[in-house]
């Protein structure tokens, strides 16, 4: 059953041209983690604030566990929603110790119960013995963990995370990301997190909502949005994607490519294929029959692979992720084939 139901939520700001959030709907099932992904200005943070109650909505509604918590002109007050939030720059209270930060939202508990809870939370995030430190005495990763513990301590029904890893450097961010995921799993927390980093979203979320200019582009599981993007924007947002127009392929219907084309009436002039660089490979032109050919324009070393840019007939540019032992060099001509085709 869905814990959180977001229905047709709209929000616009006076003076802004288009709405910040425009008719957004999605569900979050219990104990699942949802990633809200989009570029800056896509409305993801506004949406998160609407869920938290820090922002009003113009139309639509939000239900939590069946109860309407946000609707036009009101809803449940922020402090009574039972929703926890981890803020972008952690927003730890600088005048309180780690312990007092974590227990800030905990009420109706006796002193011993509070101490037990604090110990449990510190253990959960791996900060045992740090209760008396002040936020400025902590490292970035530790602050992030305190913020998580503080949001989890009152046992919220739903946890929101606003760009939780963006203030950490790349190396730290991966370990904190994995830890956070493990903690949320362990506590079976239902969570919604906002990020502009597709890597974070793919790694942490059970489901992803892609937003652009306030509208939902796609809702789906991570492999789904990556491998079966709903549109060109989603396809290119989650990494490089080659567009091969049908008219550039010599035999597009040679039994190798089958797809469902939208409205009846034939193939539009701009119709074509979207293919990720890692789904293509290079073979020598002799082996490939009438496959697409291209001349190598640029080779970039990418670590475990080479990034090869080719110029094909009719000015089509294709990027291929090449990790075969064969050497390639600028100026050579190669044939481009789908990886799966060779295997099958």
């Amino acid at each position, binding site marked *: 059953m869905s814990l959180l139901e977001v229905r047709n939520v709209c929000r616009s700001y006076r003076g802004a041209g288009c709405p910040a959030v425009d008719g957004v709907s999605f569900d979050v099932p219990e104990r699942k983690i949802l990633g809200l992904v989009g570029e800056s200005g896509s409305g993801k943070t506004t949406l998160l604030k609407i869920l938290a109650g820090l922002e009003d909505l113009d139309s639509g509604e939000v239900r939590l566990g069946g109860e309407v918590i946000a609707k036009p002109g009101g809803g449940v007050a*922020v*402090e009574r929603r039972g929703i926890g939030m981890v*803020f972008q720059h952690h927003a730890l209270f600088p005048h309180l110790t780690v312990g007092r930060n974590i227990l800030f*939202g905990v009420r109706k508990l006796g002193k011993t119960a509070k101490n037990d809870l604090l110990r449990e939370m510190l253990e959960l995030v791996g900060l045992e013995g740090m209760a008396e430190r002040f936020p400025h005495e902590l490292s970035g990763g530790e602050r992030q963990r305190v913020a998580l513990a503080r949001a989890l301590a*009152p046992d919220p029904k739903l946890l929101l995370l606003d760009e939780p890893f963006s203030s950490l450097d790349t190396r730290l961010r991966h370990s904190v990301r994995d830890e956070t995921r493990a903690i949320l799993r362990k506590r079976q927390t239902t969570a919604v997190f906002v990020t502009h980093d597709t890597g974070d979203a793919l790694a942490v979320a059970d489901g992803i909502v892609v937003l652009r200019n306030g509208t939902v582009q796609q809702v789906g599981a991570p492999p789904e949005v990556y491998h079966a993007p709903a549109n060109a924007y989603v396809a290119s947002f989650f990494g490089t994607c080659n567009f091969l127009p049908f008219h550039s392929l010599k035999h597009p219907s040679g039994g190798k490519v089958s797809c469902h084309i939208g409205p009846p009436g034939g193939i539009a002039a701009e119709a074509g294929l979207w293919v990720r660089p890692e789904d293509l490979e290079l073979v020598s032109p002799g082996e490939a029959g009438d496959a697409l050919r291209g001349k190598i324009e640029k080779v970039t070393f990418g670590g475990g692979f080479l990034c090869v840019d080719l110029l094909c007939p009719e000015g089509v540019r294709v990027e291929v992720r090449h990790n075969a032992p064969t050497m390639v060099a600028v100026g050579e001509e190669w044939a481009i084939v789908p990886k799966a085709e060779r295997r099958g």
Partner: protein
Amino acid sequence: MSGWPARGVAWVIALLVLLPVAVVLFRAGAPAGEAWAAIVENRLWGHLWQTGLLVGCVAVVALLLGVPTAWVVSVYDFPGRNGMKWLLLLPVAMPGFVAAVAYVDVLAGLVPFYIWVRKEWGIEAFLNVQVVMPWVFAVGVLGATLYPYVFLSCRALFAKQAAGELEAARLLGCGSAGVFLKVALPMARPALVAGGSLVVMEAMNDYGVVSAFGLTPLTPGIFRAWGEGEVAVAMRLAVFLMLFLAVVLAVERWQRGRRLFEVSGAEGLLARRKLGFGKGLVALGICLVPLGIGFLVPGWRLAGWAWDSRGSAEIVGHLAAGWNSFSLAAGAAVLVSVAALLLVAGQRVLKSKSILVAQKIGLMGYGFPSAVVAVGVGAVVVWVSQRFPWASGLALSASVSGLMFAYFVRYLAVGIQPVAAGFERVPSALRDAARTLGENPLGAVLRVDLPLVRPAVLAGATLCFIDVFKELTLTLVLRPFDFETLATRTYRLTDEGRMAEAALPGLGLVLLCLAGLIPLTLWMKGDGE
């Protein structure tokens, strides 16, 4: 939460701040009869030109003292520079009327000089010199105690923001004088205007210095009419003072609006040029002149007299006056801080536009001339005691409330500014975090904002305390009969020609102001200013 009580209180505060000016404007319209005609005929023109001349001369002197000192401590390295950077601020703690104590008898001692002038240059020169010398002293004392406003704003500009532009001018081949005249001075104009207009406002508000030297610009003119019972005349003169202020503010606004200087601010600190021994002495001399006139000489003379009068019977009176000053200042500081917190925190909690407007009105009070606030509040006090005669038994407390009311109007802004700045520095995410952790808006402000803005509230309270502690103009007019503060006592004894006895309360006043200012300066320095 509708928050109507908070909105209501905020608007009561705003209306209280506006009340004295409203009373003045309203009462100035009442018929004033022959008294006004007589004033127009005999005194009005004198009040006006004296105000203009005084304000103009004081501004020029303050700029002449403040700008070069700010320049040398920012650009050059010389023995004593580090000390001078702070010592040059000391005159802030020396109210003009206290410094005047040390100079009034110097003026009186000029008689042999007058006689010499008469013998050498004739009767006309003798008469002119007698008119001019009090002006020289009054302007000198006011300029030397008010220049820190100019010094502070210019130092901030020279030392930090304009560093890049000044370095560029140097690299382009400007000599020191060229850099100062062609780049620094034109760039400093906003700072000059900002500091200069504060000096002008303070000079307009002055009562102690001008009356010690026998000058009669508008402020003493208003009090004279008020003292003579010509309420309507006093109100009309007060309107003239407000018009005068309006002109000054308009000029300031116009100057600012025409050229808003953007200084880069990214270039970091200016590398100071080390001066040789001779030039170093000159630089030190430039700093010692204002410091000497504004602080060292009066401080030294007062200290000497205070030491001589240590066994005097006046000391009991001094202590009582000191206690009065302290209680008034402490009371006003508490009142102002509570009101400031209410206005700023209330606006934060309720996100209310109307409270924001009330807050802006509260800030205006600091711009109202003291004389206007004094006669406005005075009229209110008189009206209340006539309307509610049963309250006349409480005459003393009524006047003390009047005093508090006047301090509140004038110094509310002093409390609001640091508190508002303090709240501004608290990231809104902290408040949001508290909300998601189950706090209502009020709880979030109480548990998160308040502990974080406590230093700012304390700073505001301290500033307000110091301002009230050294306040003379309002206190002189509104104090209950026989009620003295250190300021009024210093002034009265000076007025009676008892300089030696005035020294001790004056010195006490200065020392207490210093005791408040030094920790405040250190705190603000630690806070990154």
